[in-house]
Each structure stands twice: as structure tokens, then as C-alpha cells.
């Protein structure tokens, strides 16, 4: 193990984790705001936004809350594992990083199945883009950076 000598790639991965974590949390806050202001927003919506809202409603409240909770969990995992990459900690970095990647891949598949195409569901290029980072994380943590974490 290369203790104390952090590869630049791991630092880059940590920075990306922080960026995606912040982005995820902002997205969650946006979704909550939309729900809270639903009544006011729906009056001023154009047709496309209304279609998206209908598609969002079609998921059902339990699934919606579940996806929201998973988004929050993913963002937290990204943040903690990012710190773990910086400190090169086995559990905090490697294990939680893998946990995030697996969770994101499963969530992506479930979202593609249960959500309508209007809000990003189905097998689309957009869905594939969402898989890039988790798949890269999974591959890199278990190949290039496998030996860079300590207990």
C-alpha cells in the first residue's frame, strides 16, 4: 500500500465526489421546493412542464419519497467517501465509495424502470450518462486505486 502518497487521480475523484454531492443535495432541495410550492407552480406551468408533473405524480408518493431518500443517501455517501479518498481510509473511502457506486447503479436501473421518459425514465442516452460516474468509481476503486487505502 502506498500510505501517505495520494495519487492525483484519487484527489480528482474526491473533488468530483464533492461536486456531485453538492449537485445531488441541491437537486433534492429543488424537488422538495417543487412539492411544497406545487399548488402555486401548477397554475403557471406550460404544457411540457405540466406533462412532466403528471409523469412525476404517476410514480406514486411512496416511490417518490423512496427515490428522494436514496438521493439524499447517495449525496451523503459521496461526501463521506470523498473525504475518505482524501484521507485514503479503507472503510470511509473504499467501502463507502463502492457502496455509493452500487447504490447509484441500482437506483439508476430502478428509476429507468418506474419513471416515465418525460422525467428521465426508460432506456435513454440520458440514463446512460447517469451511469458514467458510478461505473467509473466502481472500476477505479477496485483496480487503479485498490492498493491506495489504509485502515
Amino acid at each position: 500500500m502506498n500510505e501517505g502518497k495520494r495519487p492525483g487521480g484519487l484527489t480528482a475523484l474526491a473533488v468530483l465526489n464533492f461536486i456531485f454531492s453538492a449537485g445531488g443535495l441541491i437537486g433534492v432541495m429543488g424537488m422538495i421546493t417543487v412539492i411544497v410550492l406545487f399548488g402555486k407552480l401548477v397554475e403557471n406551468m406550460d404544457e411540457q412542464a405540466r406533462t412532466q408533473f403528471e409523469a412525476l405524480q404517476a410514480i406514486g408518493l411512496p416511490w417518490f419519497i423512496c427515490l428522494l431518500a436514496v438521493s439524499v443517501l447517495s449525496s451523503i455517501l459521496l461526501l463521506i467517501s470523498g473525504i475518505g479518498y482524501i484521507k485514503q481510509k479503507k472503510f470511509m473511502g473504499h467501502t463507502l465509495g463502492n457502496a455509493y457506486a452500487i447504490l447509484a447503479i441500482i437506483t439508476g436501473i430502478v428509476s429507468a424502470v418506474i419513471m416515465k421518459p418525460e422525467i428521465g425514465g426508460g432506456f435513454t442516452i440520458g440514463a446512460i450518462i447517469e451511469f458514467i460516474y458510478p461505473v467509473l468509481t466502481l472500476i477505479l476503486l477496485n483496480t487503479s486505486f485498490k492498493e491506495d487505502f489504509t485502515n
Partner: protein
Amino acid sequence: MSLRDVSASHIRLISFYQTRYTVRGGAGLVFLMITLVFGLTVAHAVLTPIEQIMAQQAKAGQQSDPQKVVAEIVKLGRPVIQWALGIESDENSPASSDAWTTFLLDDRPALLSVIFLILLFGMPLLISFLAFNQIAGDVQNRGLRYLLLRTERANIFIGRFLGTAFFSTLVIAIIIATITFYLGVNIKIYSAGLLVGWALHGFLALSVLMLPYIAICSWISASVDSPFVSLVLAKLIIGGVWLFALLGSLVWKPAIYLNYALPWGLQNHLLHPQLTHSLGTALACLGYMLVFLFLGYYRFETRDL
């Protein structure tokens, strides 16, 4: 020390470690992320309108014909493609130029052609994220001195160039394979043979096009001591040549020829209908690469490390 000291086994070893180091070092990872997101976002932007129209037709209970939808969009996009290929207008263009647009939009999978044209323009602007730090970082931290005890400068220079080129080719292959697979499975308007054949052509075109741009990054990286300066210079030179040619030509038309300082001026010809023409363009790209590599190697060989 000269090119006579070149050793294939040393180059193989150095290029292997260069490929591995690009990911561990961070530059490769950033390039991988940016390029994958860019490539797939381009595909997303091109394919989404078609998918949306098909979905709307299906929702309205109409018979959805993807081929008709694509034909309609291609008709609308034809002037844009002609502009991108440098064809001024239908009336003034020679028959061969018009045949080029027809080849890209009618004879070959049009959606893939449009994606390739955007990638041919965008990829040179991204390649410096991967290739900027082939030499400069090791010169700055003096790590190169330890390497020079074991091998010659020529092996380091060529090995690192080849490792970077291999990594870039791998990333391009992933992007094109993903887009082609998606087009084949989801859009289903082109035959598998046509799609794979054109995808292979696009892959080769993009891979060859990256070589001169990687070579110019090798030259810059071998000339300066700081990776950051190397990245900034690479960005300024690659993007600047195109921008100066574009803006300059608005004031003084011949300024457009500045594009030929790099492959900007001819890179679209890699997708030309005549095979001899596209092969000639590929050879020209290799020519650019050799010139930049020679200049970079000369600088690297003669400089004080």
C-alpha cells in the same frame, strides 16, 4: 543520444505505464469523465428530438415511422451540415460538395454522421486534458532525471506519446460503441451492417485526428517545466488557431487558411465519400503528427533537464 537509441521494449514498457499513470495521475480520469459526458451529451442532444417526436406520435395514436421522422429532421438540418462542411449554398456548390452532404445524410446513417461531425470539432478541444502532462510534470519535480539513468530521451518521448494515444483511442472506442449500440437497439432505423461499418469509419477518423493534437501537446509538454503552463498553452494554441481563423476571416478572408496550421482546416474530410480522399486526409493528419513529434523530440533531446 539520438533516435538510433530507440528501443521497442523500452517504448512498450513506458507507454504501458503512461496509460496506467494517466488514470492514477488524475489527468486521464478528468479526460475520461469530460469526454464520456461530452460524447454522450452530443448523442443525447441529437437523438432526443427524434425520440420525443416518436413518443408524441405514439401518444397521439398515430403510426410512428422513425425513418420519416429522421428524414424530416435531416431535411431541416441539411443547411447546417453544409455550413459545417464549408459548402456555401446549394446553388453555388459544386456537385462533388453536394454529393458529400448526400453521402453523410442519405447514404450513411445520418444521425451517426451528425454526431461524428460534432465530435470531430469538439474532441481536439478536449484532448489537451489528457495529453498536457506527458513530460512537463516530471521535468518540474525532477523525476525525469531518475528515469534517464535507465533509458534514453527518445524512448520516454515516444513511449509517452504512444501511451497517451492508446488511452485516447480507448476512450473514443467506448463512446462510439455506446452510441452505436444505443442507435441499433433503441432507434432501429439503420441496418446493423451499415451502422457498424460507419461507426468503424468514424472511430478510425476520430482516432487518427487525435494523433496530431496529442503530438502538439507532446511538443508543448516537452518544452515547458510546468504542467499548468503546458495545459494553458495547449488550450490556447489548439482553440486559438481555430478562433483566430474564424474571427480573422470575418475581417480578412484569407485568414481562414490559418486553420491549416493544425488539422482544423481538413479534419472534416476524414468523412469524405471518396475513400482515397479520406485516406489522403488521414495521411495528412499523420504528416502533421510527424512534424509536431519531430519538433517536440528535437526540443526534448536538446534541452537542459
